[in-house]
């Protein structure tokens, strides 16, 4: 996932161990960004980004706001389209369709099919306010995966148990605290059994006393499942706990990456040092 052309010797970051080369890991990457550029007007948010994430790995993106971290998640979720470059999930393109050897921009139908493998938890929860908690969770399994309603409800109850909200399944989201809503949102994303879970500053909108509960839950999930996680956060302790790899972003580039111990204790880049001292 080295994106920094100015240091050509940077090994390819791979989410397992930044020092190990991609070939040595013997595994194929699950997520692959190739020269992905995204601009908003004249502002280049991502600049020819290359990135690989291996299955089951937890990658945390850190960096100052506006550095392009959230854009990566939004590109993965197909909420945005890259201006240049390609993104692959497994052996299929996320952004493009392979039509007889020619890559064409993905159609809606194709995007919808492939993004079933990706789940996302948003900063603002984005629960459906018109549905009770249980139906928030069962809606997509029933109407996207074609799950039987009873089976979906059974699974939703298990997930609510996991997130500790069984007692609230019959409530509307507006009747829950922010922390509870976010835990429902996590259960909702997990109900789709995604290969990849995208976490976009999931605690930033929470009152301080509610942050710990959500982070503890995510720690449990990170440690007890083989789900691949891509996480944007300002919670450095959390990043240190769950990450296999931390990537430091600045101005649309990955300027440094590596295992959390390395990034947090011995950052090489001056910008990383500045950023870390600012957020601590």
């Amino acid at each position, binding site marked *: 996932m080295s994106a920094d052309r100015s240091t050509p010797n940077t090994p390819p970051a791979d989410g397992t161990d930044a020092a190990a080369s991609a070939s040595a890991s013997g595994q194929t990457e699950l997520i692959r960004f190739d020269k992905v550029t995204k601009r908003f007007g004249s502002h280049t948010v991502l600049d020819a980004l290359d990135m690989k994430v291996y299955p089951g790995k937890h990658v945390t993106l850190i960096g100052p706001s506006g550095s392009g971290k959230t854009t990566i998640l939004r590109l993965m*979720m*197909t*909420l945005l389209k890259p201006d240049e470059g390609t993104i692959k999930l497994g052996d299929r393109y996320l952004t493009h369709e392979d039509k007889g050897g020619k890559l064409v921009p993905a159609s*809606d139908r194709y995007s*919808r*099919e492939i*993004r*079933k493998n*990706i*789940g*996302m938890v*948003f900063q*603002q929860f*984005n*629960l*459906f*306010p*018109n*549905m009770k908690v249980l139906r928030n969770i069962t*809606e*997509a399994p029933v*109407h*996207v995966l074609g799950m039987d309603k009873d089976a979906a409800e059974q699974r939703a109850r298990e997930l609510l148990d996991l997130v500790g909200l069984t007692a609230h399944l019959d409530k509307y989201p*507006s009747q829950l605290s922010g922390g509870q809503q976010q835990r429902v949102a996590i259960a*909702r*994303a997990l109900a*789709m059994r995604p290969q990849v879970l995208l976490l976009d500053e999931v605690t930033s909108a929470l009152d301080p006393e509610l942050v710990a509960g959500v982070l503890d839950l995510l720690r449990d999930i990170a440690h007890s499942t083989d789900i691949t996680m891509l996480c944007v956060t300002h919670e450095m302790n959390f990043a240190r706990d769950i990450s296999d790899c931390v990537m430091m972003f600045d101005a649309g580039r990955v300027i440094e990456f590596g295992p959390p111990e390395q990034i947090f204790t011995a950052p090489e880049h001056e910008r990383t040092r500045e950023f870390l001292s600012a957020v601590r």
Partner: protein
Amino acid sequence: MKFDWSAVGAFLPTFWNGVLVTLQALALGSLIAFGLGLVWALAQRSSLKVVRWPVTALTEFVRNTPLLVQLFFLFYVMPEWGVTLSALATGVIGLGLHYSTYTAEVYRSGIDGVPAGQWEAAIALSLPRRRTWTAVILPQAIRRVAPALGNYVIAMLKDSPMLFAIGVLEMLGEARQFSSQTFQTVEPYTVVGVAFIAIAYPASLLLRALERRLVR
């Protein structure tokens, strides 16, 4: 001027018929206005120009011409094209069509008011397009605009006497007929005026209560 209560009594039997016709026109007209308005609102969000453009043209045209002209057009011109409907049916269609161009705007603002995060959550869950509309967007949009839609029902009520112009015997029509037969004018028109208030005012109170409940 003397107010003759016995004239009121004499007017009442036909007046009730008029009330019934008014309420009928209002109910059916509202159904058309709500249904068609939603169709227009969705069509105007279509990615296809061939859908968007004619709908925009039609709704602008209908909204910017008087209801009375539209009623006359439907009633006198449509039969020339072989479409003959009863006066009430014509009136209901005219009223519904006219107000659908307003409800379309109401729906549009309701749909625009659903936060972008709702669309994003629907995408993140891969919900199909139709399901996103029916289960996520429209329930929230309609809840938001229900009071505004209700206001148009009250406006429609107040426009319903125009149907008299094409011969529908709603409340005003019955009053007019009664007065031309009995030469008593004050009583029937007073009854009709009171009736409009008696329907419209509680309705608007109901709407305000609804608004307090829905818009949070």
